[in-house]
């Protein structure tokens, strides 16, 4: 479904992503793990068009994303929940969700999706009119995910959805990710919380200073000594 082929990303002279290739098949949850600064966010941004890789290609459902305008990528069915949530702070919860459906024209469909999001996140319903900037971190994360699924995407990129959340909320967010996957969404997940991420994933890639150093079945990686030592706390 998603194929990343040998991409390179530079920030000025910093070579942040070095020949990264990865693949996500339809229906999978694939996670991308790695230390701070390894290049996880940059990889997701290069996939969703937030930045253009210097070389290499990204293709989504057989189409070369290099030839697609960044703002059209969502229309093709790929949504991205960016690092740090980035909800529109000065807009209400409902308006944020509506922005998620910006590319959708059918008002009935939008209303259905809105209802579905509110069903999944009842807390957002209670705070429908509240400004997003005044939500708690966990609520903002729910809003960011809710906003991304307002467009009925086929694929969801998630950048550290558990960052800064209490253990209880982390659990909730991971079970939501699993549910979304079961409802048919393909997922590429970036996480610091490698243990949790691996436990819900089919496959995973390990990124180190801009390079993929390991890849494989999530269960096997959980047993891998190097992975255990570096990312699973022994």
């Amino acid at each position, binding site marked *: 479904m998603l194929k990343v082929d040998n991409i390179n990303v530079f920030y000025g002279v910093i070579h942040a992503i070095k020949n990264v290739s990865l693949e996500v098949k339809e229906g999978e949850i694939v996670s991308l793990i790695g230390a701070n600064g390894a290049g996880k966010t940059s990889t997701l941004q290069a996939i969703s068009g937030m930045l253009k890789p210097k070389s290499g290609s990204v293709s989504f459902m057989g189409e070369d994303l290099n030839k697609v305008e*960044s703002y059209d990528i969502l229309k093709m069915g790929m949504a991205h929940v960016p690092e740090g949530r980035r909800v529109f702070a*000065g807009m209400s919860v409902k308006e944020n969700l509506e922005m998620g459906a910006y590319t959708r024209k059918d008002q009935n469909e939008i209303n259905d999706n809105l209802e579905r999001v509110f069903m999944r996140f009842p807390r957002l319903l209670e705070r429908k009119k509240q400004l997003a900037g005044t939500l708690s971190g966990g609520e903002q994360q729910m809003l960011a995910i809710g906003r991304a699924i307002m467009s009925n995407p086929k694929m969801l990129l998630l950048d550290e959805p558990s960052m800064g959340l209490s253990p209880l909320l982390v659990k909730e967010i991971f079970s939501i990710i699993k549910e979304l996957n079961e409802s048919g969404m393909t997922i590429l997940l970036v996480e610091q919380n490698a243990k949790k991420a691996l436990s819900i994933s089919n496959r995973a890639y390990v990124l180190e200073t801009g390079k993929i150093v390991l890849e494989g079945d999530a269960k096997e990686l959980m047993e891998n000594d190097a992975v255990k030592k570096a990312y699973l706390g022994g």
Partner: protein
Amino acid sequence: MEFIQQVINGLQLGSIYALVALGYTMVYGIIKLINFAHGEIIMVGAYIALTSVSFLVQMGLPIWLCVFVAVVFCAILGILTERIAYRPLRNSPRLTSLITAIGISFLLQNAFMLIYSPTPKPFPKMVTAAPITVGSLQISMSALLTIVISIVIMLVLQIFIQKNRLGKAMRAVSEDYGAAQLMGININHTISLTFAIGSGLAAVAAIFYCMSYPLVEYTMGTMLGLKAFVAAVLGGIGVIPGAMIGGLVLGIVESLTKAYISTQLADAVTFGVLIVVLIFRPAGIMGKNTKEKV
């Protein structure tokens, strides 16, 4: 009565400031640029309206149609300046685009001086209806039109920004344009739309201005633009209702100062008000006093 008369004069002038201030504030909101060329759009609007009047007369059409010609021309000019001058600099340091804006300002002034000569040109009278008398109060038709139409325009704009899909996209882009792009919003189109609206409003302001000061010259946009900028800052730059309030407050202060203190001091008082307000409310009357959240 004299006092109310002065307040009405102030509202008239303030409506003009407010329309221009909206352009500053909307552009600032979306690309964080103080568009110093914005004042010149008023001047361009006035010249274009003036030129179109003679064509309209030849064709036997009513001359107030010149408003539409000016609005369309200025909207296109606004889109073009952004496209040609500011867009290539979007990721450069802010100072670079600021200096570019000043450059555009001189460019427009000089171009229009060359095209129309430096001699001021009279603007034909558009409103001939007699003033309305309420008790001992006389309200000129041009004052009434300026105030009422400006308020209607501002209300429509406010509804557009709050409720319309494109209006919401403008707000989203001004909050976070990476995230807005992820929502499928075309950032460039949204910015163009912002410039078009801001410049169109400046053209409307130009015509209202010419209704009470019927003289068109190539420097006319400078002081007017500067005061409208003060109004935008006074109201809280980047905040749309702020520009409206800031414009009206500034107009009234200026008119009352002229009437009761001194005509010569009017501009000094205007800027004095700005300084005093900013001491107590650094973000302006309606500005959000929040630190940026990371």
